[in-house]
């Protein structure tokens, strides 16, 4: 099979996101990640299906030269589930926004995670409703001033990571729109994960919520305000690589290496494959100013998938049952003859 390149995944449609929108970068990362995934897993291009709901990010399927389904608001996860169960050989990628996946589509989102259906959900979190022009979303910060909260919101936001892990998600990763290379890594890891993979991309809406993630994306602040987690590596961060995370038996703590008796030895090593969810929860929950925001693959554990379960059960019953055709079914059970 000839290797695919990012060009193979670019459709002929004009990309219509605003200049400077964070979605451009995530799309570019996807178009670069999928050739690598294809090579690693020996996938042909026609196996990809890109599904979306409604919102700015949900236009993504039109920009991918793959099978695509731009569905209705909030329902992408249900559509993806149906596609994967119907044909488990397909590889399903889903684009959805914070309003789409966590407000109107919140129910489908948590149930897809609970079932561990093998789909890859890219959650574009810009903390705002963009396509309807600037209303607060379920991830907008408490007090956010928007068109529908002119005096500030009076409701707490969801942390998508907590929601995913609370639903016993088997894969959760987080990144920033601008982290092109990390995003490719995360997408590849998601593709290799059997089960429901949720990738949260903190994206910037230049028009309605510009700078929402500035404390994380600003090159001057990023190193101190974020930590990139990599499998088997120490949880060290900071401009000078002098800060790290330790676990004191109850909670995570940020320490300075060489201060308070902490050496590099004491710093936690990231293990996304560990079944115990509590550290992953704590990592996903971290936020400023006391903690860095965790980026990278936070959790990636094995569990049975829904699509495998459905397929195996059908196979199993087919072997055990005596009924293999409609005629056999029609004559099964209680019948009687009329002469």
């Amino acid at each position, binding site marked *: 099979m000839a290797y695919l390149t990012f060009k193979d995944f670019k459709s002929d449609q004009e990309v219509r996101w605003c200049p400077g929108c964070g979605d451009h970068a995530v799309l570019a990362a996807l178009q670069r990640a999928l050739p690598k995934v294809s090579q690693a897993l020996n996938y042909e291009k026609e196996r990809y299906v890109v599904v979306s709901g409604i919102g700015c990010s949900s236009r993504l399927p039109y920009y991918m030269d793959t099978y695509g389904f731009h*569905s209705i608001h909030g329902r992408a996860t249900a559509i993806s589930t149906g596609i994967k169960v*119907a044909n488990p050989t397909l590889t399903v990628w889903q684009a959805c926004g914070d309003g789409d996946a966590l407000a109107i589509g919140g129910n*489908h989102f948590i149930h897809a995670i609970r079932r561990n259906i093998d789909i890859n959900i890219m959650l574009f979190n810009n903390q705002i409703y963009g396509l309807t022009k600037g209303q607060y979303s379920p991830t907008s910060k408490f007090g956010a001033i928007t068109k529908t909260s002119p005096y500030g919101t009076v409701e707490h936001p969801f942390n998508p990571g907590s929601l995913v892990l609370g639903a016993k998600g088997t894969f959760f990763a987080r990144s920033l729109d601008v982290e092109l290379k990390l995003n490719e890594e995360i997408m590849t890891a998601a593709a290799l994960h059997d089960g429901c993979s949720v990738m949260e991309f903190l994206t910037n809406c230049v028009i309605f919520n510009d700078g929402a993630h500035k404390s994380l994306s600003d090159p001057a602040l990023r190193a101190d305000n974020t930590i990139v987690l990599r499998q088997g590596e120490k949880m060290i961060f900071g401009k000078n690589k002098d800060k790290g995370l330790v676990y004191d038996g109850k909670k995570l703590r940020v320490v300075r290496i060489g201060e308070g008796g902490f050496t590099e030895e004491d710093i936690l090593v990231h293990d996304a494959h560990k079944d115990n969810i509590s550290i992953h929860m704590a990592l996903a929950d971290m936020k400023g100013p006391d903690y860095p925001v965790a980026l990278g693959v936070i959790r990636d554990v094995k569990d049975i998938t829904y699509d495998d379960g459905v397929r195996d059960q059908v196979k199993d019953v087919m072997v055990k049952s005596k009924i293999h055709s409609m005629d056999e079914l*029609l004559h099964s059970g209680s019948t009687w003859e009329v002469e």
Partner: protein
Amino acid sequence: MQHKVIDTKDVVIRFAGDSGDGMQLTGSLFADMSAIYGNELSTFPDYPAEIRAPHGTVSGVSGFQVHIGSADVNTPGDFCDLLVAMNPAALKANAKWCKPTAMILVDGDAFDEAGMKKAGFKTEDPFTELHVEDRTLLVASITSLTEESLKDFGMDSKAVHKCKNMFTLGMACYIYSRPLEYIYQYLERKFSKKHPEMIEPNKKVLNDGFNYAANVQAIPNTYTVAPAKLKKGTYRNMTGNQATAWGLLAASEKSSLPLFCGSYPITPATAILEELAIHKSLGAKTLQAEDEIAGICTAIGAAFAGNLAVTTTSGPGLSLKSEALGLAVMAELPLVVVDVQRGGPSTGLPTKTEQTDLGQALYGRNGECPIPIVAAHSPANCFDAAFNAAKIALEHMTPVILLSEGFLGNGSEPWRIPSMADYPEIKPPFVDGVLSEGERYYPFQRDPETFVRRWALPGQKGFEHRVGGLEKTHEGVLSTDPANHAMMVAERAAKVQKIADFIPALDVDGPASGKLLVVGWGGTYGHILSAVHELREAGKDVSFAHFDYILPLPKNTAEVFSHFEKVIVCELNSGQFVNYLRGVYPQFDYLQFNKVQGQPFLVSELVSAINEAL
């Protein structure tokens, strides 16, 4: 007293008791036994929404009516020849369904002070209070006789009381000369694995009930109902919901596409999902979704991926699915949506039957959004209706709504088992496997005759394309161009109308022209047929046309109507079909007869309404 055995053409028996008394089972057993005996039959369960409604109250009464006969059983019967009432509440709720000649069998033990009070009787004589004192009254101490019958088994009283229904069934079997063997076999099958100790007690109570009825000298006459002259073949009893599930499985086999059903449990449609979940050996996949919307959306996803996609629901669920139905129309994907209608609006009367979702099926979506509608007309006919709905969906690339009704879904009738060889293949408009050099697949290019688009499945090389809810051109490119939108709206509507070339013509029962044509659709078929036959036997000039296809209508509809002086449309709503007909064929004057009580028509009320129209 001189005992007579009377041969009769048909009888109607209504079993009624507390919702925990096992009346549904008792009725079904009586029906199944009669089917095997060779009778024609029709059943009608009438039960409350609560699983165990307050004990002994009228609202908690569960009923099961069965009509058996030696010919022409089209309905479960208006009024009963035997009412079995296991407590005062059951008598109170059902006395009105007794024929003037009816027998009423009650459990005298249940008619104590407390029971009478719970049922809200004001006097000590319930029969007189309900004006049924002149019927043949059989007051048997069923509870204490059951206790006596089982005294040597060492069972606790709860287990003993669960066997009361067998005593009753035994009495009914004596009255209608039914052999007990079938019930013995049923009890052995049912209890052999988990509760073999329950087989003998149930058999004994059944037998004691039969013998008690024979010995008590209170039953003036017993009856025989001769087997019907049925067409030769193998028969089975089918409920409408089971037939619907099997019809969909048959369509899966005939299209060689795996069945996918995404559904959320809802009364009275749940049994379809349950039935499909059993038949994984035929490749059926069922997904019990997190909500109604996920039910249809998983099905739409499965359709996109190339399965025969189905979602099953009732009225409130159809409301929730509206937006996604629009998506299926826009994406032009095949999908069968089964709506087993119940009393509405809102939660309404979940366990009662109506035809009140027709308007929703026709119009209940945003935008110009036509969806073909097929209606089932009897429990067994649900099989063909489901098969045909799936065939239309797959061959015309459209969602199809199949309207069933609680009355059909829960009702049952014997069915002569067809051979699958007699059913047509289903041929979806799949693209040919390979594109020639330079050729491109345009997802919304249409067949010039049928306006049907071609279907390419994810996984097929070179056919990558996008579908979705936004308006597109034939090439699949997003477009807000006014002329393109107008064209696509017209083409989607035309595609649905062109299905009329593929459905059967409207049949007329009776003379093809005359004074009055009675029109019906859906589950009222049996009642209207009985009423029209009764009137024609009385010399009236009446014909009958029943619609299995609502959208599009059969092509000869106007032609059929034009041969009658008057048309009367009878339906279980306030006039949804008649108003639709008024819009499509305004050249005719329509009379209408409607009922919205959560109950099927009575043949007698149809007869008087039709008489009035003549």
